[in-house]
């Protein structure tokens, strides 16, 4: 079946004066349109520059670290990270004691901070009375607002003496056989550094875990409760299991923070580049060797060795953070990793 196209009515013929008036009106309308198009583009360009500046900053940091450390990279190669010698006088540099110290202190911090952080997050999202939730979460987040140097000050004068007098004798008596808790008890050492790091890592783990737990759909909780689960069973089955990727992300983000934390650790770890099994012994971390020695390091090679440590720290934290962010995003937003099939 076909219909005949309706005849369009003949266009009215405009007189000359009418068409010039319309042209004038058009012109009048177009001028601001051109201007506002330009302003819009300029505005967008300005914002784009701001956004791209983040990329530029990150690549600039990377570029500077690589070019300034090439002396050390060329001299020592990969051996730099495996050698235990740190002898500025002889010009022999190896970063292994610092890598060891960073890993061990961060590990202590995670062992202490992860259960606590998870406990806080679970309590605040699932168990806490509504009226307490706001004040309590604000208070736990205040932990993150205390500057590192203030924690360090407190750790030197309060925590380290406490650890020396009360904690280390007890640990030595009951767990001395493991070899981890033996030797002279200074209070200043890996253990204190790990504890103060844990205090600083807890708010990160707990706040991101809270974010992840809140993103678990409410109906999952309701379904578990409807099947007769107790509250804890509901949390374990419906909440924690759904959020495990995000929780792992939160833990890894905490690790990222612990690896790069500088001031508090520098103030209590004892700053001695050695590898000792006992956690009572002083150690040294990558960040604290930079903090202590960089400003006064004489000689190009010394400086460039320290910058190479910084470069290593930079690369490791970037990998750690990128991985953790992807995990967190995969649970809270489903971007850019794949969304879970519900």
């Amino acid at each position, binding site marked *: 079946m076909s219909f005949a196209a309706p005849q369009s009515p003949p266009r009215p013929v405009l007189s000359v004066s009418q068409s010039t008036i319309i042209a004038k009106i058009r012109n009048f309308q177009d001028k601001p349109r051109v201007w506002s198009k330009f302003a819009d583009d300029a505005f967008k360009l300005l914002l784009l520059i701001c956004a791209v500046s983040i990329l530029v900053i990150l690549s600039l940091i990377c570029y*500077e670290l690589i070019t300034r450390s090439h002396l050390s990279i060329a001299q020592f190669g990969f051996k730099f990270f495996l050698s235990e010698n740190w002898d500025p006088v002889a010009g022999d540099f190896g970063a292994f004691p610092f890598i060891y110290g960073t890993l061990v202190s961060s590990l202590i911090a995670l062992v202490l901070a992860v259960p606590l952080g998870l406990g806080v997050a*679970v309590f605040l999202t699932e168990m806490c009375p509504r009226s307490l939730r706001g004040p309590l979460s604000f208070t736990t987040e205040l932990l993150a607002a205390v500057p590192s140097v203030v924690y360090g000050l407190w750790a030197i*004068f309060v925590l380290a003496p406490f650890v020396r007098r009360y904690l280390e004798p007890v640990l030595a008596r009951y767990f001395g056989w493991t070899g981890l808790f033996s030797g002279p008890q200074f209070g200043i050492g890996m253990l204190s550094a790990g504890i103060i790091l844990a205090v600083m890592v807890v708010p990160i783990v707990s706040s991101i875990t809270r974010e992840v737990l809140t993103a678990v759909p409410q109906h999952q909780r309701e379904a578990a409760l409807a099947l007769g689960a107790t509250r804890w069973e509901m949390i374990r089955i419906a909440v924690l299991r759904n959020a495990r990727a995000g929780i792992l992300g939160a833990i890894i983000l905490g690790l990222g923070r612990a690896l790069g934390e500088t001031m508090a650790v520098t103030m209590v770890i004892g700053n001695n580049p050695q590898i000792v099994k006992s956690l009572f012994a002083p150690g040294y971390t990558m960040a604290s060797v930079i903090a202590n020695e960089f400003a006064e390091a004489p000689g190009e090679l010394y400086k460039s060795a320290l910058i190479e440590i910084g470069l290593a720290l930079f690369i490791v934290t*970037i990998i750690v953070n990128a991985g953790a962010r992807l995990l967190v995003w995969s649970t809270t937003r489903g971007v850019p990793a794949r969304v879970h099939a519900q």
Partner: protein
Amino acid sequence: MPSSNGEIHAQEAKRISLRDRYRRFKNHLATALALGAVLLVLAPLIAVLTYLVLKGIGSLNLAFLTKIPTPPGEVGGGMANAIVGSGIILLIGSVIGVPLGIGCGIFLAEYARGRFGNAIRFVSDVLNGVPSIVIGMAAYAIFVLRQSHYSAVAGGFALGIMMVPTIARSTEEMLLMVPHSIREAALGLGIPQWRSTLSITLRTATAGVITGVMLAFARVAGETAPLLFTTLGNAFWNFNINQATAALPLQIFSYALSPYDDWHRQAWAGALVLIILIMGTVSVVRAVAKRGILSGAR
């Protein structure tokens, strides 16, 4: 019911009630453990704040706030130059970090919904995780090595960089809370997009954006590591932004590690001043955020 059957039922019920009791016990145990975690986490916070007040308030006097440090070992003096120096460095940091951060946040909220936006978001999260000492090192390489002198500008640059990701993400979050209908209404009235973004969307979210800025400010105000080899510290007054400048966190650090009792006391006082500055900022932020237009949406 036959008695044997009843016995079986009774046994069954007992078994179930035992299991139930065990489950209920586990539930209570988990609650207790979680509550214990909260208390254990709050303990160091309370301990730190108590010690700060107890030890700091005794040394906090007029001389501390108005005088510059004495030579090593001499009693007296204060941290006036460090407080002012911190102000200068933070001002430079804010001048660099705040516009960049807000601009980036607006871009992410209004123009970047796609792959490119996600890339920027991702990079900004990653930059947020870069250790502050590494950022300080980069600022050293960019400024101090090129100009061959320490300066407040180098330190301010490092702090400014650290502010950008925090501000960008919080600005984005706040702008996304502004209802879409407001944007559409503005565009429907023929207002160009840049104007609508600046005077309508951003205006509506002002309280939230300021909150983000202040939180970023509070976060970098206590940073020490990026200043160690950029502003270096200074025992005297200095108002030249191209010279080594004293900063409060640096002063606390070096005084805490010094062998002098009087300097230890001053370190506590300095830490108290620093924490009051930071907590004050955070509290103001909360007050502003509560009164803000978007408070209902949070």
